[in-house]
């Protein structure tokens, strides 16, 4: 049973509970456990590449032979790494570890969520609960926004490299390089927002639309209980911590 088969709300609950617990529970033990669980999640099957992040035509480098689980794991670590460096510059070792583990938990949870949560299932789940299609879509889009932007950034980076942009060199050089990558990303994304808003309307996404759920993800009593249990655990931890 892969994580992707769980109800989207369960995935959301898990991705929210782990960072919450990381911050509530005393450091560093609390952080160690939650970070370990979060990183372990990134290794589970069911974590996959989101739409847009596919090899070939969208240009994401996907080296043959590496399993999707490792990609997610690596992404989580690589995203969290700069924070550790930053923290170490500002704080002593114990504080660095304490905060670093909490941040790692947050990053890993979010990266895992973005890789596991199928946006169409989230839309179906929220629509089945009575949300309007535009609200559901917006909610799901915020979660897929980062992987989509990252994918676009990679395509732009490729195009600029093919024009001679080198990611190496002096700091000044790298800052200039950043501009050549960040600007087209922002400009084309903004430009596309206008186009997308119009384009999505053409697909029937108008305000007030009542969408037919095509395949609402099944929700079991076990999962519902698990979600409540996660909430209860967070509340209990809060009470215990501040007793």
């Amino acid at each position, binding site marked *: 049973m892969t994580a992707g088969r769980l109800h989207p709300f369960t995935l959301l609950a898990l991705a929210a509970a782990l960072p919450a617990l990381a911050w509530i529970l005393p450091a560093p033990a609390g952080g160690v456990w939650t970070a370990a669980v979060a990183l372990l999640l990134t290794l589970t099957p069911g974590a996959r590449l989101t*739409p*847009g*992040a*596919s*090899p*070939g*035509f*969208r240009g994401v480098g996907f080296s043959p032979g590496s399993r999707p689980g490792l990609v997610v794991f690596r992404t989580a670590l690589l995203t969290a790494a700069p924070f550790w460096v930053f923290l170490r510059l500002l704080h002593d070792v114990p504080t660095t570890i304490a905060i670093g583990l909490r941040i790692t938990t947050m990053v890993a949870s979010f990266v895992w969520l973005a890789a596991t949560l*199928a*946006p*169409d299932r989230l*839309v179906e789940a929220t629509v089945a609960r009575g949300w309007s*299609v535009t609200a559901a*879509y917006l909610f*799901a*889009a915020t979660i*897929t926004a980062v992987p*989509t932007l990252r994918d676009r950034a990679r395509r732009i980076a490729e195009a600029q490299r093919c024009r001679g942009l080198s990611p190496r060199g002096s700091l000044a050089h790298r800052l200039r390089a950043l501009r050549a990558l960040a600007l087209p990303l922002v400009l084309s994304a903004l430009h*596309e927002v206008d*186009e*997308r*808003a*119009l*384009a*999505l*309307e*053409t*697909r*029937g*996404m*108008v305000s007030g*639309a*009542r*969408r*037919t*759920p*095509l395949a609402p993800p099944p929700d079991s009593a076990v999962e519902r209980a698990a979600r409540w249990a996660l909430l209860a655990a967070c509340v209990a931890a809060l009470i215990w911590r501040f007793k």
Partner: protein
Amino acid sequence: MKSLTLERVSFWYPATEAPALRDVSLAVAHGEIVALVGAVGAGASTALLVAGDLAPRLTGGRLAGTVARRDRSAIVLPTPWTQLSGMAFTVWDEVAFGPANLGWPTHEIARQVDRAVEQLELGPLAARNPATLSGGELQRVIIAATLAMDAGLLLLDEPSAELDAEGARTVWRLIRALAKEGKAILLATSALDALPDVADRVVWLEDGAVRAAGTPDLLGEVAACDAGLGTSVATLWGASGLPGPYPLTVDHAVRLWR
């Protein structure tokens, strides 16, 4: 009564002095295929947005004149990848996205989607992730997705732009079949060579205004060829100094030659 009527329509994009459309009048009847031709920037895409009630409602700007629509419309944009939902992991789900948003019952959705998938010959791709498709495959998926919404008025902006020869043939054949079913079709295209066999009428837009309108024979006239809007055969015929009006297609030219 026609499916779509534009009467003396002028349109200005926001913060632009020059109108994108000037006093344009055209109509599309049920079962009719009308093609808009013109240079880049002549206003064909804008005309489609106005026809589809997307301009000025979503684009902003100002509209003068009247637009009368009898049916629901659906549009295929010249940038089909922007029309991807981003929410579907299979082509089938992608095509079903629109109908689902329209709130139809599931059996009706399945019927429309299966039909559209078959019409665009997407069977082998039905389980593929839309993100892994090539530009041409994607364009066919978006066309299918638009057809599945079962609109009476179809607005197509460069439907064959990204397609290879086979894909283009499928789409043109399909457009003729849809017109036979009674749909009204307004399309903008630079694939002039396909029009003699596809379009019932051609409207030539220049700088936002209608320069000429008539049957596809328009594309064989001297004026059109001089403006770069003749078919390849017609343009060639004219360039060789033979008298006009010029033949539109190879078959036509062969008959004229004999």
